[in-house]
């Protein structure tokens, strides 16, 4: 760590001469960056990136980190829309960087394309696009997202009909990427709200016929930070990279509370 503090890294972690494929177009990538060691406030950094229309936004970030600026910080793991690590705000909406294709962001009519990338909102930013996920997981843990059953353990597997499985099928798809929770205006202003993701994962067990703790979870979500805070803005449904009908799931929990059916 002998390099001067503010000096921009000349190259990325894989060198400074990136391969540029045939047919690549140059797009402008504007990234909201924050380095807690030097910056008081987040700042915008702009890069020109050669890319193919078939590239994902994650490829652009890889290009920047590997060949332009190795200090660029973001999370990603599987890069195929399953692990839920790379949720970020792309052109103002929460998306997984590994699921958004460049061709869907290109400006029409031969105009230059600018892509803005910000960290997801409502969680403390550690560095650049990397946020502290702990408040998100705290809300997740608080709804008891695991099977609870009382009485003797069964001697064989817990059987469930296809119809009973169908009731919570949608909410089993959650990958905990936090795209929904950090798109919620209520969560932005009040972080103690459980948020869509925690409610989705509560829904997954509340409506599971094998689970016996629906009442406990409904009590938790009936309180001041629970489902009644939802304003049905549908940001969460729009943000979910797995296509979960998040707002519908929240409404189903509200209905279960109103009419006491699970």
């Amino acid at each position, binding site marked *: 760590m002998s390099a001067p503090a503010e000096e921009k890294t000349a190259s990325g972690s894989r060198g400074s001469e990136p391969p540029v494929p045939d047919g690549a177009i140059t797009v402008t990538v504007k990234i909201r960056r924050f380095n807690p060691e030097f910056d008081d406030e987040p700042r915008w950094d702009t890069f020109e990136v050669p890319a193919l229309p078939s590239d994902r936004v994650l490829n652009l970030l890889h290009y920047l980190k590997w060949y332009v600026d190795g200090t660029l910080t973001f999370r990603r793991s599987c890069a195929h829309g399953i692990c839920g690590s790379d949720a970020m705000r792309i052109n103002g909406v929460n998306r997984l960087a590994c699921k958004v294709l460049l061709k869907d962001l290109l400006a029409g009519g031969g105009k230059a394309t600018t892509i803005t990338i910000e960290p997801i909102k409502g969680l403390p930013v550690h560095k650049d696009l990397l946020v502290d996920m*702990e408040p998100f997981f705290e809300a997740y843990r608080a709804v008891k997202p695991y099977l609870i059953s009382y009485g003797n353990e069964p001697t064989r597997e817990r059987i469930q009909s296809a119809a009973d499985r169908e009731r919570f099928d949608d909410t089993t798809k959650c990958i905990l990427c936090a795209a929904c929770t950090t798109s919620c205006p209520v969560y932005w202003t009040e972080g103690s709200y459980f948020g869509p993701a925690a409610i989705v994962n509560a829904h997954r067990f509340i409506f599971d016929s094998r689970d016996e703790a629906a009442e406990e979870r409904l*009590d938790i979500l009936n309180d001041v930070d629970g489902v009644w805070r939802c304003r049905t803005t549908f940001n969460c449904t729009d943000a979910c990279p797995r296509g979960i009908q998040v707002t519908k799931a929240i409404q189903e929990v509200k209905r279960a509370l109103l009419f006491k059916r699970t």
Partner: protein
Amino acid sequence: MSDALILDKPRSPRRPAARRSNFELYSWLFMRISGLALVVLVLGHLFIMNILDGGVHRINFGFVAGRWASPFWQVWDLAMLWLAQIHGGNGLRTVINDYARKDSTRFWLKMLLYVSMVLIISLGTLVIFTFDPNITG
């Protein structure tokens, strides 16, 4: 709380246990029902006051006195006053809950809200029931 528990998940903030209260449920339900009632009450009120029979120009002391001589309009206005105050107040309560950053700010804003609600509801109710059309002097 034992030390072992604190060390169990050191970075995990703890939430207070659920209060097992249906207050938020009823407040949510009240907003829906009172909202529907207010659509009828307020639109009806605006129609009578501003459009029917020459509209706003015919409103004077005698008009108000005539209306409040009937228990029907007394109940209408009373319902409108109470529902609008509680509906609006509850809406502001949720806004304060969402946007107040500090617990003390939240507490005092809510106190201000509740006091203003009580004052306006009491004053309005008092006027509706003690209105005397026979003024002299």
